[in-house]
């Protein structure tokens, strides 16, 4: 059966939904769909409407299925949706599966240049055929443009169908192709082809559409890797070392780009008349592996620079030995772990929160680290700045556990702000003047109320010289194999770790009257869990919310678990790692916490949380 016109199912137009729908776009990766998809998402954002875009992509450069999901929701519920009102089916490999995912009464937009197999049709879904390939064949000459412009053409059709603002789209195209007039003209032409076709052949707009709002006026559209890099720039990091790895690569790429923009200082020419030059007030080292990357960070931090690395799970595994050295010898370090799906190589382009225990206890022996859990790019920026302060204050590695969903997807978040009075906390570092005022310097003595002892950096007076050693040492920094002397140091380290709890971002708690149910979560689960709590409330289940933002935990985490008759812990891993960590570290009974686990590699949806909570309650009323 061939169809090039829409045939609508009855009743589909019965109610108008403004600014509340979800689209899914099924593409083949490497064909240029990303720019068309982000164009749509950015246009909706500029129209002032809360929106999210989730890129569900393969670990591949070209030829495999890739999807992009756009959720529009004026209330700000922009976690991943699972019911799609419209599917743009551009990938013949996945047609069959994609079409089954459309909600009853929804739409499928497909390329009608070729007939769609009758077996793929559904009676309860509307098919919108647009001859994209045919249009592009007729209107473009180069084979590359004929492929690329199909994407912009379907975007044009969606502009008409969803009532997007043509002026906004035009401005976006002009901005994107400011340096390439020919490409701009092609994009404008392709957009118009799709737009006009939709207007002529379909009833536009659809019953769900976008209407301008003022809800994103003070927001930005940014991904977590960019925001983290910005945080490192503002924190004053000067030495960065890394090894390329998905999904963390863009963090360092962004840091390099930001440094090139903000850290190049003009230098007067040495010889009069010679051109002035610049100097780079930063040094980025692409290391031979992640072991080297963390080694370089430790060397730089030891020497008094703010230094960091960005990586993902496999990198943390490699870094583990030196992370223990840093913990035991008390060297600051900042590590961004943009988590991906493990174990082993796992699924590098899919998201998870499965490095929680790995990072909490990375390395052999009794080690414990400080973790920060940002929930979105805004927190990536803030926590990046915090992480350097905490690392230097407590002289220890600090992990910022982002994930692929936060790191690589664009999020609408409140704009970033900066206090120009901010003074970084460089921790306890003795300068030569302070050294001269003390009788003798020993590295691990003179602890403060946070159990931190002052350090010196290389280049300071010989009075402050000491020998860092990963081997057993006493509080004077001297080698020891004496049990009491060894224990004295590691006992202080344990107390120091506990003392850091109060210096980390506090948990976010939202309480509801009469709630007996509690939900604990972290990181990128945030939006889905908040939406789920609102949904549960409509179903008569009042639930309190607590999102941990740092480890070690403050006392309120334990209290929250104990205060609720039923406490769910929602996280994105198989083994309930946050739940285990809370049980181990707060000594609250693990049975007090009901695991809600999502770990297939795609971002969490509210409905998955609601289903888990309600089905648990059905089993145990």
């Amino acid at each position: 059966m061939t169809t090039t016109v829409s045939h609508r199912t009855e009743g589909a137009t019965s109610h108008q939904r403004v600014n509340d729908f979800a689209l899914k776009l099924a593409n083949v990766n490497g064909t240029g769909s990303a720019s068309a998809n982000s164009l749509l998402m950015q246009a909706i954002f500029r129209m002032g409407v809360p929106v999210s875009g989730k890129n569900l992509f393969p670990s591949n450069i070209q030829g495999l299925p890739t999807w992009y999901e756009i959720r529009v929701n004026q209330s700000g519920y922009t976690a991943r949706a699972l019911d799609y009102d419209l599917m743009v089916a551009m990938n013949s490999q996945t047609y069959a599966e994609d079409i089954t995912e459309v909600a009853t009464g929804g739409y499928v937009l497909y390329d009608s240049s070729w007939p769609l197999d009758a077996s793929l049709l559904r009676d309860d879904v509307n098919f919108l055929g647009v001859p994209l390939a045919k249009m592009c064949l007729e209107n473009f000459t180069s084979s590359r443009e004929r492929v690329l412009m199909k994407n912009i053409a379907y975007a044009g059709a969606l502009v008409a169908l969803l009532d997007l603002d043509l002026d906004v789209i035009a401005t976006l195209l002009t901005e994107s192709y400011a340096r390439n007039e020919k490409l701009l003209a092609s994009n404008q032409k392709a957009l118009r082809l799709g737009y006009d076709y939709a207007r002529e052949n379909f009833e536009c707009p659809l019953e769900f559409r976008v209407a301008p709002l003022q809800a994103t006026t003070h927001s930005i559209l940014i991904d977590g890797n960019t925001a983290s890099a910005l945080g490192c720039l503002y924190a004053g990091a000067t030495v960065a070392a890394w090894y390329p790895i998905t999904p963390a690569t863009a963090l360092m790429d962004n840091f390099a780009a930001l440094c090139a923009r903000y850290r190049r200082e003009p230098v007067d020419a040495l010889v009069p008349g010679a051109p002035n030059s610049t100097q780079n007030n930063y040094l980025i080292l692409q290391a031979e592996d992640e072991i080297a990357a963390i080694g370089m960070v430790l060397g730089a931090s030891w020497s008094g620079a703010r230094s960091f690395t960005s990586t993902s799970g496999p990198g943390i595994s490699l870094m583990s030995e030196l992370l223990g050295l840093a913990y035991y010898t008390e060297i600051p370090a900042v590590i961004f772990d943009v988590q991906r799906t493990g174990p082993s190589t796992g699924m590098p382009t899919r998201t998870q929160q499965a490095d929680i225990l790995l990072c909490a206890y990375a390395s052999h022996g009794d080690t414990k680290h400080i973790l920060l859990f940002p929930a979105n790019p805004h927190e990536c920026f803030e926590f990046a700045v915090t992480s350097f302060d905490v690392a230097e204050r407590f002289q220890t590695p600090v992990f910022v556990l982002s994930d692929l969903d936060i790191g690589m997807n664009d999020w609408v978040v409140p704009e970033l702000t900066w206090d120009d009075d901010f003074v970084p906390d460089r921790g306890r570092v003795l300068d030569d003047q302070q050294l001269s005022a003390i009788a003798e310097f020993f590295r691990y003595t003179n602890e403060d109320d946070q159990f931190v002892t002052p350090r010196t950096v290389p280049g300071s007076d010989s009075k402050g010289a000491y020998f860092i050693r990963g081997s057993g040492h006493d509080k004077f920094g001297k080698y020891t194999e004496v049990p009491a002397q060894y224990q004295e140091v590691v006992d202080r380290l344990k107390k120091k770790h506990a003392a850091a709890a109060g210096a980390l971002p506090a948990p976010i708690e939202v309480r509801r009257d009469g709630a007996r149910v509690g939900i604990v979560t972290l990181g990128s689960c945030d939006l889905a869990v908040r939406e789920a709590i609102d949904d549960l409330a409509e179903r008569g289940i009042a639930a309190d919310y607590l999102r941990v933002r740092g480890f070690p935990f403050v006392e309120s985490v334990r209290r929250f678990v104990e205060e609720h008759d039923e406490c769910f812990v929602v996280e994105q891993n198989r083994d309930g790692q946050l739940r285990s960590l809370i049980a181990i570290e707060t000594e609250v009974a693990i049975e007090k916490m009901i695991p809600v686990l999502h770990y297939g590699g795609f971002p969490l949806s509210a409905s998955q949380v609601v289903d888990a909570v309600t089905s648990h309650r059905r089993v145990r009323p």
Partner: protein
Amino acid sequence: MSSPTKPLIPLAGLPTNELGLTVRDYEGAMSTLCAGCGHDSVTAAITQTFFELSTPPHMIAKLSGIGCSSKTPTYFVRGAHGFNSAHGRMATIATGANAANRELTYVGISGDGDSLSIGIGHLSHLMRRNVNMVYVLENNGVYGLTKGQFSASADIGSRSKRGVSNVIAPIDPIMLGLSMGATFLARSFSGDKAQLIPLLKAAVAHQGMALIDVISPCVTFNDHEGSTKSYRFTREHEVKEIETDFVPWQQEISMPHHKDDAREIVMHDGSVVRFRSVPEGYDPHDRQNVEEYIRERHERGEIATGLLYVNESSSDVHEMNNTPEVALSKLPYSKLCPGSAALAKLQEDFR
């Protein structure tokens, strides 16, 4: 092992250097290595080198990995800043430290296990990056701390103390360096301070990564008949055709010149390395020539020592990255943070 503090016996009349310090001020804790260990001689040479160069102790950073050799930074320049890191990882720590503060003199001490097995990747990339540091590889062909296993530098046919012959090809750090783009490659013998000290001085003056492979016999596990890293074997097979003097730049004027038969290399800091003798046709700037010479000597069962290869014209990691003269760690925060106005403007890109 714990290092006993060396008793500081006041010796009147010890010569002082430009800083008014005596050689005693460049010593460290008492060595806990076996009596007669080659490493202790290297320690003594390093002590003497920094004393003679009048390097301020606090401007020295001494680093090491794990192994017998890596214990030795405790035994020299007690006023220097020390970092005993993890097995094979010293190069990475040194790279980061140097990145943060290029103003210090970095000296890394490693062994053949640390450098040529577990840490060979890092050593290779340290040479590629040309991090400005002295890298002393105390090479004894054997794992001492774990009691006598062959290391990756053990020659084929070399016999262990238990009588087992090594059958795997050795890694020569000099040959490795030639292929990795190293800019200063020297070999010496722990028993020859007269050769080692000028090489150490030249290595300090070199702007880049300077590797000195020091054959340093292990008296306990690899100094027997049949070993090719014993004192006796090294003495009998060492070929010292390449001899150099080191002339600090301050002394240049008073030194007699023999320009006719000496090759001179002016180092980055103005000091001069003068080749007193080289074999006929030998060019320490010619990678291929050097490689052929070492290979030829090796095939004859000989160990060529001296400053084998040098390239003073290459850039170190800071020059490659166009960083400021001052240490990055000393840049004031005001130079590093773009501020609120820049952040507001930058975010126009995110709308």
